Every structure is written in C-alpha cells, then in structure tokens.
C-alpha cells in the first residue's frame, strides 16, 4: 500500500456572506505566489460576472497552491471556495466532501452568524478539522475577544492561537497558512488501490467535453486510463488530468488525496452526475463512495423562452447549467399562455434569480419566468395525495379534500430597535411567534414559523425595507401544515392566463388579487381596445382593473425627409412588441409574469 502525499492539504473556507471569505482566498493565493498582485483581479475565485457584481460566491472554485512552511518543507494546498448564502448549502456540502479541513472565517465586528453555524455543522458532519480565523481586525468596531468567546461558546471550538487577520490589509495571512499546515490533517488513501474519485462538480467545455472536478479518494488516474461512473455503463478514455492553478493545468496523473480534474471526451451530460464516483472500467464492481445528500428544491417557477422557437436552446442551456449545478431540478412544462418551457425547482429565491440571470447572460437567451411557487400537498377526496407546485396543475376544487403547505422555521437577527417592525411583518405573513432571545444588548434573535409561500412572495424585500437592511434572515423547512388555500386566477380580456395563476391563502386572495390587478394594469401597455384585468377565485371575480384603449399612437408628420426615419421609429416599436407575448388577444410584456411578486409599495 502506498500512502497519499503527506504534504498535501485539502481545505475549504466557510463564512457568512460579507465576512471576507473571497478576500482571504485572494490573499492566500497572493502569498503562495499563485498569482502576482499585479495580475490580480479583485476576488479571483469569483469568476462569474454575477458573482463579482453581487460580491457573493455561487460556484465552488478549486485552486492548487504551493507553500513553503516555516518548517522548511513545501506543502501542496488545494483550496475550495464555498458559497455563503443559505440557498447554496448544497454546494457547500459538496466542497466539504473533498476536504480534510475548513477555515471558519468570522468577522470580528459581527461575530458568529446563523449561516456560519449551519455550515459549521455541515463540516462537523463530514469530520473536518475546523480552524477558526478572525477577520477584519483592522476595523474600529472589531471585537476580537468577543468574537473568540462567541466561537467557543456557540460552536465549542478552541480559539487558542487562532489566526487573527485583516484580509483587506493583508495582516497575519501567514498565520493562516501555518495553521493549515499544522492543524489540517493530510489526506488518507492508498494510491495503489482501485480508483475511486468523488465528482464534486463539473462543467461542459466545448473542446474537451465534460470536465469532472474530482477528489481522488483511492488509486491513481492517468491519461489513457479507461474509466466510468459507478451509476452508468458508459466507458470513457481519459484524455487529460490536471490541477486547478486556478485555470486548468494538465498533469501526468492524479493520485489518492489529490484534488483535480479529469477530461475524457464525455459528451453526455447525463452520464456523469455530480456526487457519483469515478471508477476504473476494469473493475466495475468497485463500491462507490457515499454520495451527497439529495437536496429537495423548495421554490419553483416556470421558465419559458421569450421566442417560442428557442425552446431547444433553452433546453440545452438548462442541461448545461444542471451539469454545473446539481441542485437545479427541471421538467418540461406546457403553458397555454406561454407554450413549451420548463418547470424548474430551486433551493431558494436567490438560487432562482441566479439561474435566471445565468440563462440570460451565459446563453444569451431571453426568457419569461413565472412567479415563484412552493410545493403543496393536496389531499384528494378519493383519498390519494399529490404534490403540486404548478398552480395550473391543481385539481378541480371539487376533487380536493384539503391542502397542506410547507412551513419554515425562520430565524431573524436584528438590532432590537426593529423588533416591532419585524413582528408586524411576520404577523402580516401569517407567522407564528416561537421564541425571542437577546444575544447581547444590540442583537436579538427571533424565531417564527412561517408559511414558505409567504416568504417567496415579498418577505425578504419587506424585511430589508422595514429594518433599513439591518436584519438578517435564515430559514429551514420544517414540514407541512394544513391550510386553507385557493388558486387565484388572472383573466386578461376575459381569458384566464394560466402563467399568472398563484396559490394563496384564502384570507389573502382578495388583497393579492387587488394588488395584482393594479400592478398588471400599470405593466400592460395600452392597446387598441380596452382590456379588463380581473382576479378570480373559483370562477368568482374578486377584483378588476381596466387598461384603457390607447388614444394616441401616431407619427404626427410624415413628409419626404421623414419617411426613412419614421420607418425606423416604427421598427423600434415593432422590436418592443417582439418582447411581448400574445395572451389571447392581449400583448403582454415578458416582465409582467414577475409582477406578481411586486407589492403595492413598489409603486
């Protein structure tokens, strides 16, 4: 038996959003000479445009580095960055499975946050060695000792001698590297054993096919080796293996303990699921590694191409994103109003937004997305049960005995000044108060039980606006509860538009219907005829607004010199029309389908 490299350290970074994780990663790479300061773009690991713009990490991005420690030995580091947002817990657990240790970054001004805890527990479940790092010590408001105390009390980690750094200023970064060397254990594994490599991510490259991001647990893989996934019979020949530097850098082989990539001209995205194990084709009986916990999507929406003929492009885009983001689920869907599209499931609202944005940016597709929904449990009168996340698939009222809706446990952290505002909001959102604790004099933790469908509506925006952005919020699904739910339909010019239907609590239907009609009235451009916009529950109209007929839409003058110019103006107007969908006789702008999310206050 040949042991894995003793000087190898695989680790990741866990932190709450904004606690400085990506900046620390950047400093580590700088110090190990991975990138020269001059070449460095801010936050190198966050390579997607959306990540840079929003200052958050969505995708895990691995990178390999070499570090000569104070003991004179050279160590190879594999750092795997992780996202901080609650929606991306799944990504976090994937990166954790490839590591032996985790840096837990805590902001010295903020202390331990709810999200930090969730990820720490994930890391502990995987038996990772956790190294606390206190960041932002340069700030006036830094409370290093309090932060340490919190880590010890809340998480139970020893903070004796833990690195206290300022990633922004580059202070004490070497302490982190030394801690990695001495506290994170080297990987176990036998380089001579049969190949077993965990796929923790993948993406599609136009030239090389699917690129698998792997952590080799046992054995060695080289170019020319025949490999396969444990769940598929397809055999592939390895064309390239390598490390992340952070761009792909070919190597001769990857051995047990190492993190790297495998390319094998894999064309079919379905053959190599993230979480699966790569094994040698010669030994198909090799037992696979434990995969990941399968995550359940909690938020759903319909995604349709704006231009109906682009359905196949949309399909390809979603398939490719799925390869890269295993938590995305989808199935083909067909809407009367919008034609062919997909019903997609997401881990949360942010996840949904990011996917929508990536489809538009990375695949240059214009899409229409419907209002987010959650999955309801319908008990039918014949005794059967089914889950429904698409309002238009709800069985007729006469067949429904009762319905249940998903409930979350929500934890809200806020300065005490906003307690009243938060409680009002939760009350409005059908919340049930559970608990309140003062964490210290300036922070309160509130616990509520809330229906998830209220959260996917406008809870987050409301919370932010009512607390001037001070409150933070995290939630987890706790189960289903019986609830009086109805489907709210919207009629445009007398015809139901299925893509605008929502499932709401009975008591909410009237107010939602009103708001919806008002918003739609403003969002739908005036046309040649008057358009009634109506909200209905069970065939009964509960609210109505009217889009008046357009009164003036004409080129005042059109003489000799104007003809070309006026033709261009009309062309522009026509372009605008192309961004609309015809629902029955009514032209509806694609944004309208998200209007359902807007509240009255947006106006």
């Amino acid at each position: 038996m040949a042991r894995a490299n003793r000087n190898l350290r695989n680790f990741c970074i866990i932190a709450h959003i904004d606690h400085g994780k990506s900046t620390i990663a950047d400093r580590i790479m700088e110090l190990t000479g991975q990138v020269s300061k001059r070449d460095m773009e801010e936050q190198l690991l966050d390579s997607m445009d959306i990540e840079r713009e929003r200052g958050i990490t969505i995708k895990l991005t691995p990178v390999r580095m070499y570090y000569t420690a104070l003991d004179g030995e050279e160590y190879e580091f594999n750092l795997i960055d992780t996202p901080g947002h609650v929606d991306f817990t799944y990504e976090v657990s994937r990166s954790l499975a490839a590591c032996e240790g985790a840096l837990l970054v805590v902001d010295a001004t903020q202390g331990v946050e709810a999200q930090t805890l969730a990820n720490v527990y994930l890391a502990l479940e995987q038996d990772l060695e956790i190294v606390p790092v206190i960041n932002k010590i340069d700030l006036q408001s830094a409370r290093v000792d309090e932060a340490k105390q919190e880590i010890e009390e809340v998480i139970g980690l020893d903070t004796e001698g833990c690195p206290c750094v300022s990633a922004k200023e580059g202070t004490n970064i070497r302490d982190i590297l030394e801690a990695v060397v001495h506290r994170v254990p080297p990987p176990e594994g036998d380089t001579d054993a049969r190949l077993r490599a965990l796929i923790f991510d993948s993406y599609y490259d136009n030239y090389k096919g699917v690129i698998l991001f792997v952590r080799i647990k046992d054995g060695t893989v080289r170019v020319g080796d025949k490999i396969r996934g444990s769940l598929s019979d397809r055999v592939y020949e390895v064309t390239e293996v390598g490390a992340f530097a952070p761009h792909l850098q070919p190597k001769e082989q990857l051995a047990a303990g190492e993190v790297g990539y495998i390319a094998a001209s894999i064309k079919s995205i379905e053959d190599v699921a993230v979480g699966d194990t790569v094994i040698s084709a010669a030994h198909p009986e090799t037992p696979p590694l434990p995969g990941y916990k399968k995550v359940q999507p909690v938020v759903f929406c319909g995604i349709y191409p704006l231009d109906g003929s682009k359905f196949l492009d949309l399909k390809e885009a979603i398939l490719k994103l799925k390869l890269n983001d295993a938590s995305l689920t989808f199935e083909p869907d067909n809407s009367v109003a919008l034609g062919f599209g997909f019903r997609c499931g997401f881990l949360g609202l942010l996840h949904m937004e990011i996917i929508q944005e990536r489809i538009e940016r990375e695949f240059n597709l214009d899409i229409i997305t419907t209002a987010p929904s959650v999955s309801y449990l319908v008990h039918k009168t014949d005794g059967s049960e089914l889950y429904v996340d698409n309002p238009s698939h709800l069985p007729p009222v006469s067949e429904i005995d009762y319905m249940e809706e998903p409930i979350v446990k929500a934890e809200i952290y806020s300065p005490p000044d906003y307690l009243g505002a938060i409680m009002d909001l939760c009350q409005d959102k059908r919340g049930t108060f559970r608990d309140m604790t003062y964490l210290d004099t300036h922070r309160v933790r509130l616990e509520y039980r809330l229906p998830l469908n209220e959260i996917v509506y406008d809870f987050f925006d409301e919370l932010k606006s009512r607390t001037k952005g001070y409150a933070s919020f995290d939630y987890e699904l706790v189960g289903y509860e019986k609830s009086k739910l109805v489907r709210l339909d919207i009629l445009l010019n007398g015809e139901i538009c299925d893509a605008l239907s929502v499932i709401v609590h009975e008591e909410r239907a009237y107010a939602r219907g009103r708001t919806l009609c008002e918003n739609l009235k403003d969002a739908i451009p005036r046309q040649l005829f008057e358009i009634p916009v109506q909200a209905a529950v069970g065939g009964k109209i509960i609210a109505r607004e009217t889009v008046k007929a357009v009164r003036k839409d004409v080129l005042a003058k059109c003489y000799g010199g104007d003809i070309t110019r006026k033709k261009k103006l009309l062309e522009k107007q026509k372009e605008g029309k192309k961004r609309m969908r015809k629902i029955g006789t009514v032209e509806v702008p694609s944004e309208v389908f998200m209007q359902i999310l807007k509240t009255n206050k947006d106006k």
Partner: protein
Amino acid sequence: MPGIYLHIPFCRHKCTYCDFTSFPNRLQYAEAYMACLYKEIEMRGKELSDVTFDTVYIGGGTPSVIDPNYIYGAMNQITKCFHLSRDPEVTIEMNPGTVSEKKIAVYQRAGINRFSVGLQTAIDSQLAELGRIHMLQDYMYCASLLKGKNFSADIMLGLKGQTQEDVRRTVEVVALSGAKHVSMYALTPEDGTPIYTDYLNGELPDGDEVRALYDYGRELLEARGYLRYEVSNFAQKGFESRHNLNYWRRGEYIGMGVSASSFFYERRFTNTFDLDEYMKCILSGFLPVIESEQVEKKDAKFEFVMLALRTAEGISDEKYRAAFGSDWRQDFADAYARTAQYLEETPAGMRIRDEYLYVQNQILTEYMNG
C-alpha cells in the same frame, strides 16, 4: 407626378421644438448658399431632364426670412433646368413675422401660387413659449395680404397649458382669415430641443389630452368645411396639397439644398446636414449626398401601406397592383387578418377607420416584417 423640394436653412430664431436643419443668425451666408442651390438645381436638372414635375415646395427653416429675390432666382433656375407640368403647384413656407406686401408680390412673380403660413396657435403667450418670432396680429396682417389666395395655416397641438378653448380660438382665427388648408400637428418633443425638458418634466399634455384636443379641433375644422384628407391635414375641397399627397402616394421627388431628401428610381438619398460641407461639395462639382439606400421590394410594399394608411383615400388596390404586380391583401395576409377590424372599405380599397387613424402605429407595426 414627381415633386421638387428646396430647403432654405435659415431662420431668425430657432423655435423651442425645432429639430430641422436651420441656422439662426447665419443670414449672411444666404447669398453664397443660394448660389450653391442654383448650382445643385442645374446638376440635378441635367440628370432628370426627361421627368415632368408637378409640384415645387420651398421649405425650411424659414424661406421667407431671406431676400425674396433669392427665391425668385431659385424658381427661375427651376423653370430653366426642370420640366414642369402646365399648372404646377408651387408652395412656399412663411413665418408670419417675416412677410410684407412686396415679398408676396415677388413670390407671385416667381410663379409661387400657394403659401403655407406657420401660425401654430392664436394664443400669444403660447407663441412666446414656443420661441416663435411672431404674434397673433402678425398672422392677421399676413393673412390680409394673402386674402383670396391659396394659403394654408399650421396649427400645433399639445402645447404647455393648451386648452380646448385655445384650440377653438385658433381654429376660428384660421377659418376667418380665409385659409383654404390647415395642417394640425401634435407637437413632437424631440430629444435635444429645449421643449424636450418640458416633456421630461411632464409639463406637456399627455397622449390622452392631445387626442382630446385633436378630436375637438378636427370637429371644429370639419364643421367649417376643412375635411381631413390625411392624419394631420385638412382642406377645403380641391385645396389638398398636391405636393404632400405625392409623398403619401409614394411618388418620386427630388430634394435640393442642405439636408434635403429625395426618392427617385426606388432609391432614397439625403444631402449632408452640414452647411459648410454642402457648399464645399457643390463648389467642387459634387452632389452633396451622404446617405443613399436602394429600397428593397419588401420594404417598398411596407412603405406604400404605411404612407397610404395615413390618408383618407387609403390603400388603392389598383395602385398597389400597378406598383408591385400583386395584391396587398395577399402580400400582408397575416397582418391584414389581424387588423381588418380596424379598417373600412373605400371605393378604391381600404383605409383605417376614423376612430383608429390616431392610433395607427399599432396597426402599421403589424404590417412590418411580415
């Protein structure tokens, strides 16, 4: 029959809504400019020696701001270089603040037989707001000089603070002054003009209000015998502008002078908008064309529809067939099916129903690109 357009790019003061090519305070260039224009007339005349023209239109700017003898010279050059029909319609645009008995006499000697007077509104405070150099009394004086002649007045809708009463007074002034023809336009706030600021600040009447003013103005005009023959143009019977009808029938025209546009042999072309460049070109013996585009047949068909649907005569089945050898209802089958309910039969073909004429873009865009 084809028309001739001459552009005179001078004015005394730029109006706040104006985005035409016009140069205030550059009247000293008039002589040199007109010399170039004569030259261009000569150049174009040679090219189009076998065409008979039926109308001449002298527009601007303010053509009446320059010495009338230049206009006389231009008309002289036109008759020398072009072949005109026996009874051509020759129009000049005039600002009421720039006329005199003598000027009109010179124009008439030059062969001008139609006058287009820019009144815009009978309310003096609104004239001042628009940056017009004249007042109502100037218009009254101008109209008295034109008494009995074929003249048209421009009215503008959508002015800041404009009421129906203001429109009524303006229409009355125009009718009583003896105009045979009225152009009633909605003010179009163009980006880059001073009035655009008012528009951005929501100080101008909105579309619904303009429509109400338009409907009211139209009712008053029709009651006084001015019939709508195009979206913005009204005339007593027999006094429709032949020159403008030619545009809407997709007829050919040659435009001369800075920024002038032309349409001949299925090609649309435009002269430079730069006064100096215009003169340099002409003096070096070149035509000052900066843009030229051959109209594809598909676009030509759309142009035909777009222009014809502005008018009360509408699309003529026969004229369309004569121009393209096909049936427009078939060429635009889908669009026709979608919009037929907004159209009505005429003896010659189809037109937009009265109540939809002012929202015609909604209909026209259906005919665009199939």
